[in-house]
C-alpha cells in the first residue's frame, strides 16, 4: 500500500486570494520547479510587481493572465511523503455553480476561502449550499488575509462561529470530534498556517491547512454502501481457449463485490451470483468502490452496456418517473415539458421534464415556485424517462444517484442531476441551527 490520493476543490469569491493560496500550497510543498518559478518572477517583473505573484503559477491561459482572473476549473497536483493531492481550482465568478459542481463532484473534501476582513459573504453561502447539495463529506473554511486584521483572535473566531451556523443549517455536523467542518486562519500571501505553523497565531491550536489535508480519510461513504456496478462494456475474447468468456467490465460505483455474492442485474431483474472478480493482473478476493474490474457471473444472462449489477439484498429502485434536484449549468434556460437526454451510469436515455416544483434561493435558502430554471439555479423537478433506470437517492449513494441532462442537438451538458431531495429542500426554510455554536 503506497501513498493514497485525495481529490479536493477550492472555492471562494474573486479576489479573496484563492489562486495565491493554491500557489502557496504548491510553492511550500516544493511542487513548483525552478523553471516555473523563474517564469513567474519574469512575469511579475514585467507587470511591475515588487514580489512574485504566486497566482501566476495557477492562472494558465493568456486571457487569465491579461485580465488577472481565473476563467475555468484548473487542476493542480502536489504531494507529500504520505499523500498525493489533486486540487480542482474553481473560479468563483459568473459560472460559479457550474465550476463548483465540477470540482466538487469527485471530492471527499472542499476548501472554502473567505477574506478575514469580510467574513462569510453571499458567495460563501452559495458555495456551501452547492457543496452540501453534492454531499461533499467535509468542509474546510480557510480564513485568508489574517495579516490584514492583525491576527485578531476575536475577529477570526467570530467568522468561524458564523460559518459553523451556516454549515449546520446545511446539514453538516459541527461536532469537533468528527472533523466534518474545520476552520483554519491563514495568510496565503505570507504563508501563515498553510504549510508552516504561524508564530503569529499562538491561540490557534488546530492543524495547518496541509496538515489537515494530509490527515483526513480519503474514502467516502460509497465504500460502505451496497454494491453497484454500471456495466460499461462486455469483454468477449472469442478465442479458442476463451470461447465462452463473457466479462462485464465496469468501475465499482459503491460497496464491495466478492466471488459468491448474490447479485441482481437491473433493470431486467435476473438474479445470479458472482463467479469471479478479475483485473488484467488476475482474480481478486474483493473489489471496493473506485476500482475498475471485470465481473464474471455464474449464469448466462442477457446483459449489456447500461445495465447495473447490484447487491441482491439491497438493490436500487427501478423507475421511469422520479423527482430530482437539478443544478442548472447552461445559458439556455429550462422550461417544463423540455425533451432532453439523460445519462445515468453507463446508460443514456430520453427524458421529459415535468413540473418545476421549486427553486432554492442560495442566499436565503428560501424556496419559490419557478417558471424556468436559469444558469446557476438549483431546483427540484419531476422527470419521466423513456427507459426504466435503476436509481438510488443521491443522499444514499452519490455514484448511482447522480446524472447528467444533455441538450440533444448540441450534445452539451445542461444540468447536474441528483435523484431525490438531497438537501431536504422542503424543510430548509424553517430549519434553524438547533445547537449553539462552539
Amino acid at each position: 500500500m503506497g501513498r493514497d490520493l485525495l481529490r479536493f476543490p477550492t472555492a471562494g469569491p474573486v479576489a479573496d486570494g484563492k489562486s495565491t493560496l493554491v500557489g502557496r500550497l504548491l510553492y511550500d510543498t516544493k511542487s513548483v520547479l525552478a523553471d516555473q518559478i523563474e517564469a513567474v518572477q519574469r512575469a511579475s517583473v514585467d507587470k511591475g510587481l515588487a514580489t512574485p505573484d504566486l497566482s501566476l503559477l495557477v492562472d494558465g491561459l493568456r486571457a487569465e493572465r491579461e485580465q488577472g482572473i481565473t476563467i475555468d476549473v484548473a487542476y493542480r497536483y502536489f504531494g507529500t511523503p504520505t499523500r498525493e493531492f489533486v486540487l480542482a481550482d474553481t473560479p468563483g465568478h459568473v459560472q460559479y455553480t457550474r465550476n463548483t459542481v465540477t470540482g466538487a463532484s469527485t471530492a471527499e473534501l472542499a476548501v472554502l476561502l473567505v477574506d478575514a476582513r469580510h467574513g462569510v459573504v453571499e458567495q460563501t453561502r452559495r458555495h456551501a449550499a452547492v457543496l452540501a447539495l453534492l454531499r461533499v463529506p467535509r468542509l474546510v473554511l480557510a480564513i485568508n488575509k489574517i495579516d490584514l486584521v492583525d491576527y485578531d483572535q476575536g475577529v477570526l473566531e467570530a467568522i468561524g462561529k458564523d460559518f459553523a451556523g451556516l454549515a449546520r443549517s446545511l446539514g453538516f455536523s459541527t461536532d469537533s470530534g468528527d472533523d466534518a467542518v474545520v476552520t483554519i486562519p491563514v495568510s496565503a500571501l505570507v504563508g501563515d498556517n498553510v504549510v508552516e505553523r504561524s508564530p503569529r497565531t499562538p491561540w490557534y491550536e488546530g492543524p495547518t491547512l496541509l496538515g489537515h489535508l494530509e490527515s483526513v480519510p480519503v474514502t467516502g461513504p460509497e465504500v460502505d454502501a451496497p454494491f453497484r456496478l454500471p456495466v460499461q462494456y462486455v469483454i468477449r475474447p472469442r478465442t479458442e481457449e476463451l470461447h465462452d468468456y463473457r466479462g462485464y467490465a465496469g468501475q465499482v460505483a459503491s460497496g464491495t463485490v466478492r466471488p459468491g455474492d448474490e447479485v441482481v442485474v437491473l433493470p431486467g431483474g435476473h438474479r445470479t451470483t458472482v463467479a469471479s472478480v478479475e483485473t488484467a493482473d488476475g482474480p481478486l478476493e474483493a473489489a471496493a468502490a473506485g476500482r475498475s474490474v471485470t465481473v464474471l457471473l455464474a449464469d448466462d444472462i442477457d446483459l449489456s452496456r447500461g445495465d447495473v449489477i447490484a447487491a441482491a439484498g439491497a438493490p436500487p429502485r427501478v423507475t421511469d418517473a422520479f423527482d430530482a434536484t437539478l443544478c442548472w449549468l447552461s445559458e439556455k434556460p429550462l422550461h417544463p415539458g423540455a425533451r432532453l437526454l439523460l445519462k445515468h451510469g453507463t446508460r443514456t436515455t430520453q427524458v421529459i421534464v415535468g413540473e418545476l416544483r421549486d427553486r432554492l434561493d442560495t442566499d436565503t435558502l428560501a424556496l419559490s415556485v419557478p417558471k424556468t430554471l436559469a444558469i446557476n439555479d438549483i431546483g427540484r423537478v419531476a422527470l419521466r424517462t423513456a427507459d426504466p433506470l435503476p436509481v438510488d437517492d443521491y443522499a444514499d449513494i452519490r455514484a448511482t444517484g447522480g446524472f447528467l441532462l444533455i441538450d440533444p442537438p448540441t450534445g452539451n451538458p445542461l444540468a447536474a442531476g441528483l435523484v431525490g431531495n438531497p438537501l431536504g429542500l422542503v424543510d430548509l426554510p424553517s430549519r434553524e441551527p438547533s445547537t449553539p455554536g462552539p
Partner: protein
Amino acid sequence: MSVPVLDALDSLESEAIHVFREVAGEFDRPVILFSGGKDSTLLVHLAVKAFAPAPVPFPLLHIDTGHNYPEVIEFRDAIVARLGLRLEVAHVQDWIDDGRLTERADGTRNPLQTVPLLDSIVEKRFDAVFGGGRRDEERARAKERVMSLRDAFGRWDPRKQRPELWNLYNGRHAAGEHVRVFPISNWTELDVWRYIQREGIALPSIYYSHQREVFRRDGMWLAEGPWGGPRGNESLELRTVRYRTVGDGSCTGAVESTATTLDEVIAEVTASRLTERGATRADDRLSEAAMETRKREGNF
C-alpha cells in the same frame, strides 16, 4: 473483512481504464496516438489492461515528423508486433513533399504535426483520439478536460469546455467534430515513472543514461540529425545523457544523467528542479503561451 483503500497508482489506473472503456462503449472509431514515447507507451499498456483478455479494440496512429530516434521507432514497431495491434503512420514528409506543408526556417517539425493529424482524423473518420497529455505538464493543459470536444477545425476553446461531473463523461458530438481523450490527465511525471516501475513496462533505451554525441543550443543538449546542427560555432561532444521526453528530434533536448535504472530515474525526477517540458522542449519555451496556442490550433 475490510478491503484496502486504493493507493494513488491503483486509483489513477482505475480511472484511466474507466475512460478507455467508456470510449469503447460510446464511440465508433477511436484511435490511440502512439509515438513510442513513455506517455503513449503507458496509454497502450492501460488499454491492454482495460480490455484483457480480449485484444485492444482500437488501432494506433503515429504522426511521424521524420525526425526520429532509431531506437524509438524500433521500439514502436516491436510493441505493435508483440501486441498484435494495427498501426497507422502519417508521415509529415508526405505533406511537405506534396506542398500541403512547408518546412519551417528553424527546421522544427513539431508544429507541423497538426495538419497531418487533422487530415488523418478526417480521412479515417476517427471520432475519438486518445492522447497521453497530462495536466501537470503545462499551465494550459491544467485546464484541459479528460474528454475534450474539438470542432471540424480541431480547435480547442477553453471558454467553451464542457463541465465534467462525477465519472459521467459526455462524448456526444456532431458529425465532423471529434473528441480528444486524455486517460492519464491526473497523472504526474512521477506517477508515470512509479507506475512504469510497478508494472515493469519496457521503454525505449534512450530514457536511460547512455553516451551520445550532442551539441549545445538554447541551453539544451541536442543530438545530431537531419534537422540541422550542429551549425556555426556549435560543436559535437560526447556526453552521458538520457531523455526525459521524446519528441521531434529538432527540439527535444537530452539531460545529463547517469540514471541507468528505474530507481535512479525516479530518484532523479524526484530531485529535479525543472519540469520535463521546461528542461527539454524548445517548442514550449517559444512564448509564455506556446502550448495554449498550439492546442487552440488543433494540436494536442
